[in-house]
């Protein structure tokens, strides 16, 4: 029985894991870098260990330090969250050596799915459709051109160890091919230390649809339906929904079975996600498998009523799956928006800083997974995602209405966020009708970046009045105090008591 879990992560996902562990009566250990002493996961966990300086490479990514923290606190299991060490084969192996339960798949599954060419080969053997392309590293111009001819242009050149859009090139014709391959190889070598690249047919109007998988140690593997993740900027998802507007019950069964086959082919254990590209004709192709919990896992939890972190822990503890495939039915519709501290008008550049005031949306069907608070300074060292806004409603129409309501209810001041950008997406016709692919943001960027519709003079005037009074109250505040009460609200009341005409 797992008694104490160390969470080798930070931010909202550390909070999320602590919550489920606490419900199960399991103690939790937070690790933190020197930049994260005031992060919420540190004070929220039962124990906390500092594992190094601010940069991830010197703290969250240092396997020795994480293992040390486990030993110090006698944690018998590690949950890696997403990012950081979550898909690191060496870390998973090391945990095994040290007899610490790694809450995730076996090192071999991580390895096989981590290398794209190996994954492609494994899928082909398992009968899972992959995008037509090559199975080997491209070494000569001749081989590359022959392979490309077979596949047909346009073609994608991809790095085998790649991710996040790096080491990728789109090639439209024969004459640019070899140059693109060379460029991709050079970028891949400098980014991932591996220049292996391969070719894939370019899928037009692709939809990014993924299937959640759960597998126990006894070979029972089920899928928990799909998530539609085509709304992306800079190759990163910002809105996910389930069910996918593109999905049919038949296709769900078929793709779900393909995802199960993919997982079984690497003897997968735990929670994982099989990502597919789907074209407009509903042809689907294996893209990659993420051997960890996904950022967007809560939308699955919302429509299925299942706690995925609890399931992960139970599986790691050697328990059998209690859910059967036949009982997995989505109810209603869920959407997630990722709230990022970023400047949408400046190429989505991160915008860290001090959060002045947060008002989080509440009420029916809303879940906010966040880790920031009033006065918190977002560190410059890590990701710009500060919160996930997840809603569920009875159907897709209601879900969009609810997401609009909560996006307007959400207020974050002090840093720039993408809240306004997300609000506008909810009004775009293609989104409302569910007709979109991964080109959505690109296609609608002009509309999305347009300055907010003209505000009415009346609203402007109210803003002027509020600013005017705040300014005056602050002038008063800087005068010598007559009262000991420093609560702003009472200062205001005192200010209001003075009847008569005030002139400045």
């Amino acid at each position, binding site marked *: 029985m797992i008694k104490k879990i160390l969470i080798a992560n930070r931010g909202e996902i550390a909070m999320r894991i602590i919550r489920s562990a606490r419900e199960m009566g399991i103690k939790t250990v937070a690790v933190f870098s020197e930049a994260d002493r005031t992060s919420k996961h540190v004070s929220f966990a039962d124990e906390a260990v500092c594992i190094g300086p601010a940069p991830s490479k010197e703290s969250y990514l240092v396997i020795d330090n994480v293992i040390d923290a486990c030993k110090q606190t006698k944690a018998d299991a590690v949950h890696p969250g997403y990012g950081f060490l979550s898909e690191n084969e060496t870390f998973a192996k090391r945990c095994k050596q040290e007899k610490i339960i790694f809450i995730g798949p076996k090192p071999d599954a991580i390895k096989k799915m981590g290398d794209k060419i190996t994954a492609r080969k494994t899928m082909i053997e398992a009968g899972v459709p992959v995008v037509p392309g090559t199975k080997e590293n491209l070494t000569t111009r001749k081989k590359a051109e022959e392979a490309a001819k077979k596949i047909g242009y346009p073609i994608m050149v991809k790095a085998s160890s790649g991710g996040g859009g790096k080491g990728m090139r789109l090639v439209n014709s024969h004459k640019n091919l070899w140059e693109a391959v060379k460029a991709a190889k050079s970028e891949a070598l400098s980014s991932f230390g591996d220049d292996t690249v391969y070719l894939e047919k370019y899928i037009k109007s692709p939809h990014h649809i993924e299937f959640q998988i759960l597998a126990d140690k006894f070979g029972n593997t089920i899928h928990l339906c799909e998530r539609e993740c085509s709304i992306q900027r800079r190759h990163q998802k910002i809105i996910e929904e389930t069910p996918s507007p593109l999905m049919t019950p038949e296709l769900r069964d078929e793709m779900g079975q393909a995802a199960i086959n993919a997982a079984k082919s690497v003897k997968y254990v735990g929670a994982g996600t099989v990502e597919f590209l789907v074209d407009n004709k509903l042809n689907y192709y294996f893209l990659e498998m993420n051997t960890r919990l996904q950022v967007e896992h809560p939308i699955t939890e919302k429509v299925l009523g299942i706690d995925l972190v609890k399931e992960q822990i139970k599986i790691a503890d050697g328990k059998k799956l209690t859910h059967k495939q036949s009982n997995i039915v989505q109810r209603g519709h869920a959407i997630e928006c990722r709230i990022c501290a970023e400047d949408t008008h400046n190429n989505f550049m*991160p915008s860290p800083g001090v959060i002045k005031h947060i008002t989080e949306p509440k009420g029916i069907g809303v879940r906010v997974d966040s880790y920031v608070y009033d006065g918190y300074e977002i560190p410059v060292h890590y990701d710009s995602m500060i919160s996930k806004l997840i809603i569920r409603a009875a159907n897709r129409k209601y879900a969009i209405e609810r997401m609009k309501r909560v996006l307007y209810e959400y207020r974050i001041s002090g840093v720039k966020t993408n809240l306004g950008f997300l609000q506008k997406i909810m009004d775009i016709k293609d989104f409302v009708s569910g007709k979109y692919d991964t080109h959505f943001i690109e296609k609608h960027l002009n509309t999305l970046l347009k300055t907010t519709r003209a505000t009415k003079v009346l609203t402007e005037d*109210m803003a002027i009045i509020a600013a*005017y009074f705040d300014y005056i109250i602050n002038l008063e505040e800087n005068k010598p105090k007559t009262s000991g009460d420093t609560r702003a609200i009472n200062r205001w009341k005192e200010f209001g008591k003075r009847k008569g005409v005030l002139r400045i």
Partner: protein
Amino acid sequence: MAIEIHIGDRIANVELLNIDGNKVQIEIDDRVYDVDISMIEHGVYSLIYQNKSYNLELVKSPDDSKKYEVSTLYSTLPVEIVDVHRKYMKNRQKDELDDGQEKISTPMPGKVIKIPVKKGEKIEPGQTVIIVEAMKMQSEYKVKRECKIKDILVNEGDTVEGNQTLVVLE
């Protein structure tokens, strides 16, 4: 005496006529408003005007107690209180801006990755002066005009604050 408040491009003349508890009378340009105003939380105001309820959140600029961002339910408006001194400064600043770019700074904190120029070097428009990384994303800062590097105030590897001057041009 009326004061001037800027909201975006608009310049409004504001005069407080009367105050009685939460009820205030205020004139903006030619319109007179009778408004019920209340501070709910720190920096959050509730205004009721002709039964319409406005929930406004104010964020004061950290550097300037006269600049605000005011959020309504549907939009965020830049508001600035302008007095005589401020007016003079604004005009002066405008003149300076016309002279062109004088320094390179970054809008957010980050880490200096590379400085591909040297002090005293003459550079061309569009040339990169400094590369700063924040939250896994690198940004290149370039000059808009032909100029000379007057001074470099940071080193590669340094952590920098938002709005800190990194390089001075001449």
